[in-house]
């Protein structure tokens, strides 16, 4: 495991706010234990900056156990760093070596403007979910939980899609800044479950429409999103979404029409 501490060189993107231009600033990270997480390493750097009276590096983070989706960081050209299937907060310094130079950037995508340094505005993701990422049931008055049997394979597959943490790594990894993997995960989860059927075709149209409005790019099936996704969300979700979207457009378009003119 640990063979003493490391000294590293960091090239960190610093940007005061969305209005000003950013630039790389070089910092030394010294005496870094291999048992530290990547974010703890940044904590150490920040502590020393504060002691010098310099503005600490801003990055988003919260749970630090890989589930809240708040942390981001483009590390040496990879969202969430070089290892697969983990978030930045789960990345440990033992994945780096003494003397290494590490480049740290924010997610780069037009629909994710930089707020400060390494933090970006991902509210576009929320707006896509608000457009239709739900089953329209009110609290109360629902059937018993065991009334509808769901085959285990379907439930498990829906669960796999539902594990998306909404971090945005898929968008950051994509050369087109496409959000297809993110959107398709929710479309698939609800589209596979019986509870999601009544709104299945409406949902896919509303969510895709919002995704386009936010300015995310198109999918060209490169698969970088799948490769970089910390939760290993599969490209098959995109196929399912395309399938539902085309059937909706071809055969069920009246539903969306009805929704926008109804009530």
């Amino acid at each position, binding site marked *: 495991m640990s063979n003493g501490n490391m000294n590293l060189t960091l090239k960190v993107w610093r940007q005061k706010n969305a209005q000003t231009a950013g630039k790389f600033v070089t910092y030394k990270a010294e005496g870094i234990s291999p048992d530290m997480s990547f974010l703890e390493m940044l904590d150490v750097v920040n502590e020393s900056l504060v002691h010098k009276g310099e503005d*600490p590096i801003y990055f988003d983070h919260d749970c630090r*156990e890989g589930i809240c989706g708040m942390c981001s960081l483009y590390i040496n050209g990879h969202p969430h760093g070089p290892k697969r299937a983990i978030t930045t907060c789960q990345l440990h310094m033992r994945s780096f070596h003494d003397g290494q130079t590490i480049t740290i950037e924010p997610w780069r995508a037009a629909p994710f403007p930089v707020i400060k340094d390494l933090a970006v505005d*991902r509210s576009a993701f929320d707006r896509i979910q608000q457009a239709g*990422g739900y089953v329209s049931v009110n609290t109360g008055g629902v059937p018993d939980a065991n009334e509808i049997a769901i085959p285990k394979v379907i439930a498990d597959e829906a669960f796999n899609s539902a594990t998306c943490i909404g971090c945005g790594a898929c968008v950051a990894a994509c050369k087109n800044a496409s959000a297809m993997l993110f959107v398709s995960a929710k479309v698939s989860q609800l589209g596979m479950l019986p509870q999601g059927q009544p709104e299945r075709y409406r949902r896919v149209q509303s969510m895709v429409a919002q995704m386009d409005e936010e300015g995310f790019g198109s999918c060209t099936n490169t698969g970088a999103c799948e490769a970089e996704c910390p939760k290993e969300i599969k490209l098959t979700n995109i196929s399912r979404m395309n399938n539902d979207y085309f059937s909706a457009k071809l055969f069920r378009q009246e539903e969306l029409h009805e929704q926008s003119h109804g009530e």
Partner: protein
Amino acid sequence: MVLDAKIPAGPLAEKWSTHKFNLKLVNPANKRKYDIIVVGTGLAGGAAAASLAELGYNVKAFCFQDSPRRAHSIAAQGGINAAKNYRNDGDSVYRLFYDTIKGGDYRAREGNVYRLAEVSVNIIDQCVAQGVPFAREYGGLLDNRSFGGAQVSRTFYARGQTGQQLLLGAYSALNRQINAGKVKMFTRTEMLDVVIVDGKAQGIVTRNLETGKIETHSGHAVLLCTGGYGNVFYLSTNAMGCNVTAAWRAHKRGAFFGNPCYTQIHPTCIPVTGDHQSKLTLMSESLRNDGRVWAPKTVELAQKLRKGELKVTDLKEEDRDYFLERKYPSFGNLVPRDVASRNGKEMVDEGRGVGSTGVAVFLDFADAIKRLGEDAVRAKYGNLFDMYYQITNEDPYKQPMRIYPAVHYTMGGLWVDYNLMTNVDGLYALGEANFSDHGANRLGASALMQGLADGYFVIPYTVGDYLAKIGPKPVDTKHPAFEQTKKEVEERIKKLLALRGSKTVDEYHRELGHIMWEYCGMARNEEGLKKAKGLIQNLRADFWKNAIVLGENEELNQSLEKAGRVADFLELGELMVDDALMRKESCGGHFRIESQTPEGEALRDDEHFAFVSAWEYKGDNQPEELHKEELVFENVHLTQRSYK
């Protein structure tokens, strides 16, 4: 002042139905004339905001994270209890009630806990209807597992990510209402104070974390769903942003703080590795279904393991002490959290701890892997094993996990009555932010249950009663209290930003954490607590002289955010110590060394301490005043808890 918990009269099983009938209603057309403020968007806040908006109220919801989906409920792993009795193993509403009361060491209200057990069944129905993908069996029906403190399998789960799936369910319901225009959502916005107008909570003061803009928001009622205060210990399983500020500000405006010393130390967390550590990671209690907890039989063996002279996998069966199974044959590894934690600590104190620091015991899956096969174990706990591997670089399929207790949850919180209203009119507290349902120790898989019960099924009824009584007259936003409270918030920020000393806010926080863990952690005594009180007072005084807070208000300023939160923790810490000093008995998670049975279990003193402590703020650096709400037990008989 006499605290009125407003528990409805009548038989236990009828209290909630009777109460619901007696509550006043707001007619559908009038609901849109009321504004409700919901602070926090975890299970309690998300569920409340969505449900109240569905009813027709105008809701303003606030979270400090960049999205409501990030709330720390998301990190809950193991499951959610419900008295469905789908297993035919003898569960019932009464049994869940009884287990919860007993698990809480008889320091919770019977009425509240029974209601919680009663609505638990509705929660599962609601979540399934939202599309929450709970674990299922091949027949297509829902699966269950066992959790600590219960002898039935009543825990519903979604792999090791139950909190995530439940929160995303609540988040989707919230999104639907945002889309419908009934909820106005404010993200990256932190509540910094409550506005009290003529004794009623009618608004809040917030800071936009991106721009620093201080704003006031008005509402007919204010719901605080802002979680617990475990981060007072610096190291805990809480997310980095979890804080007490909203609850503490409300406390300083008159809301009583209930049972602040009741802290849950979770037995199975990944041990600390060094001073750089920023947080601790839980290994779900569900692991104790199949994992066996043990320590080496002798100090010598433990030393050899620590020095690496002996490999854990080479240790003979007869040299292992499965201490929970040995001491508690009927509950075994599934004793409640407080019991498991104290026993783990005992092993370490005896010198039988393992790992390089010697501050850990083992959680072993070798038997389960032999019995079920590695694939079955992976299917059940795969993500937890992966998480463990990422952090420790050790493979739990090949060698036992090392675990140690860590701060996980706080049973204490704002005092609320049966309607979830604090003693301040119109100010409510839901979920972990209130003190109400778990007594002195929370059972596993009950936090998700309580958060959702409060948000989906309690507050929609009880808040209506209050709103109907005060009437739909718009809140007078011109009232001077709004401007005055805002001014006070701005002055405090100025004061913080003027601090240009020599110690970082994190350094203060870490030091406070050490004091709390050492003297107000798993075991407490009078001498240590008195010492802690002095240390905290000094640390707080030093903070206000010597802390470094950089930057300005009008920007995204993490120094400032942290400073405000740590300043509040420095006040709360002292109150926790006061509460622990006052409670000269042991109960649940509150273990006073002076009060234990001959076997070393927590010894209650029902004659003198069967009450809820509710503390009233009396001014800066003034002792707080204690109020007592006597706990009345009409249905359960108070006994020494036994899991043997």
